[in-house]
């Protein structure tokens, strides 16, 4: 197996050059999340958000801005990886996916490299959203400056592992794009992006726990909304860590199965 890190880096460079070929893309990336955030924020405004609001049972109404901001920030990171996995279809069409599997490259290095490349936009988004939050949103309560970079690290690592999982699913079949529908909208609804998970019915909570984004958002909100320190977030971090390990192991196993399936059926060239 070729050095994992080297492959990871090459894959990142390639995917970045392919997907971010114009500087305008960076600005367009910001416009859509900003609009969706504003849309979610202002659609809540006509409702009763005072002390008797149902939402007030879960967090103070003055923190709605920061709640939605953290929710959308996390969602955008994860959403961009669903998009990235979808691009696997393009690699099938162009025949390049077959060339990757013709080589002795580390399959996991390739899979996670692709996911990481698409998160370069995330750094840009994170910085802008953080500035926006500090400047305009009430309710930020962090114990120290380190909460921000720690939140970024948690978000990036989790999203890359999630992205790797999605990429591997798209290796199985050209028809995996149905996952986009199955994963994207439910992730937005159930992961606690707009509504706290605690406010959901039991079946909703069950769905929420399928998505790693749920655990990530919980930690980020503990850091920036509830002012928890590192020790206090350790239990949530432990749960997230366990989920990510499971997802990583599942991805590794699925990568082997996907290649075996392709070796048997030759389906890597079907598009």
């Amino acid at each position, binding site marked *: 197996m070729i050095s994992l890190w080297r492959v990871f880096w*090459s894959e990142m460079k390639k995917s970045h050059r392919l997907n971010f070929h114009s500087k305008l893309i960076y600005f367009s990336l910001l416009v859509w999340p900003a609009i969706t955030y504003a849309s979610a924020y202002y659609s809540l405004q006509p409702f009763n958000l005072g002390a008797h609001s149902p939402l007030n049972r879960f967090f103070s109404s003055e923190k709605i801005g920061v709640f939605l901001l953290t929710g959308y920030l996390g969602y955008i990171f994860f959403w961009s990886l669903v998009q990235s996995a979808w691009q696997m279809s393009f690699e099938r069409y*162009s*025949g*390049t996916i077959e060339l990757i599997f013709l080589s002795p490259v580390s399959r996991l290095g390739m899979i996670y490299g692709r996911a990481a490349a698409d998160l370069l936009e995330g750094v840009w988004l994170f910085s802008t959203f953080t500035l926006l939050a500090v400047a305009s949103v009430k309710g930020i309560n962090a114990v120290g400056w380190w909460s921000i970079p720690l939140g970024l690290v948690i978000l990036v690592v989790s999203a890359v592992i999630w992205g790797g999982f999605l990429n591997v699913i798209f290796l199985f079949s050209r028809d995996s794009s149905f996952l986009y529908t199955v994963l994207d909208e439910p992730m937005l609804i159930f992961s606690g992006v707009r509504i706290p998970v605690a406010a959901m019915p039991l079946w909703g909570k069950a769905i929420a726990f399928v998505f790693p984004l749920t655990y990530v958002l919980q930690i980020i909100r503990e850091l920036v909304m509830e002012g928890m320190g590192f020790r206090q977030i350790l239990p949530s971090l432990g749960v997230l860590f366990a989920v990510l390990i499971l997802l990583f192991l599942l991805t590794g196993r699925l990568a082997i199965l996907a290649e075996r399936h392709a070796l048997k059926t030759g389906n890597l060239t079907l598009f």
Partner: protein
Amino acid sequence: MLSAVNLRKVYITKEKQGIFRTWKKEVIAVESLDLEIKPGEIVGLLGINGAGKTTTIKMLSTLLLPTAGSIVIDGIDALKEPMKVKKMVNMIAGGERMLYWRLTARENLSYFGSLYGLNGKALTDRIAFLLKEVELEEAADIPVERYSKGMKQRLQIARGLINDPCYLFLDEPTLGLDAPIAKHLREYIRHLAVQEGKGILLTSHYLSEVEALCNRVYIIDRGALVLHDTPENIIRDVSAGAILSVWVSELQNTMLESLTKVLLPFEASLTVIKQSDGVELRVQSKQDVTALVLQHLFEHGVTLQRLEVEKPKLEDAILTLAGRAVAARETA
């Protein structure tokens, strides 16, 4: 040496029956195929569409697992140790796919090189060498989307050579290329085999290309081997032979009778075609009877107007074989 023994590939396909029902169907793509490629040799793999050429190439290059059989490359079992074999082989297909169009030639080669563990100076040097070999140095930093078809194909060749493979599988490498560019590529393919000692497997619909380049040819039909020999032997054994056409002003019956007797031991067919300005004598024979016919005509004082010799080509042999295969299937 690359040695494939008793290769078999069966695909399971799903056929729809009504809206909800599907049933599985076995499709035999390759059946009991034995194949060898020695270093420095160009081997052709021919067959009509659906013969199993691409499936064979994919099995040899570790992209497909055979249903049965073995593939050993320089002593390494390709089915047990595919990762080792992947370092020793590469594949080049015709057409404009299999490249990242938004990347430049240098970026493409850098990425594909990294997949084989190349990095730093070794990678930079290899890229520079290959760009020079395929004459893309000046266009190295232009995105591939601005390349002509020929330039893309040359980049494909450079990409296929990035890991300096011992064995190279070429699937229609000159497909759709202009004649001068295709000729240049053919010369380069010969150079790779003769000068660099690479074992090359070539499939092509351009049979003149296969005839000109290949040391040996495997002909398959519906996945099974029909014939394996040198192009010269295949042409000699399968085709009806060379056609000698001689145009003369007039022909006497006695001369024609004696010529028929002379040609008898050679199993040659003689046809006389009357033209407006004379007579055309057409002789088809597996052996070259040109000197014999001419000597006979001169001895009888016949004046020649024109002479043409049409040698049989690999294409004629393949067409004959295809015709036989169709006839055999219809009989069965």
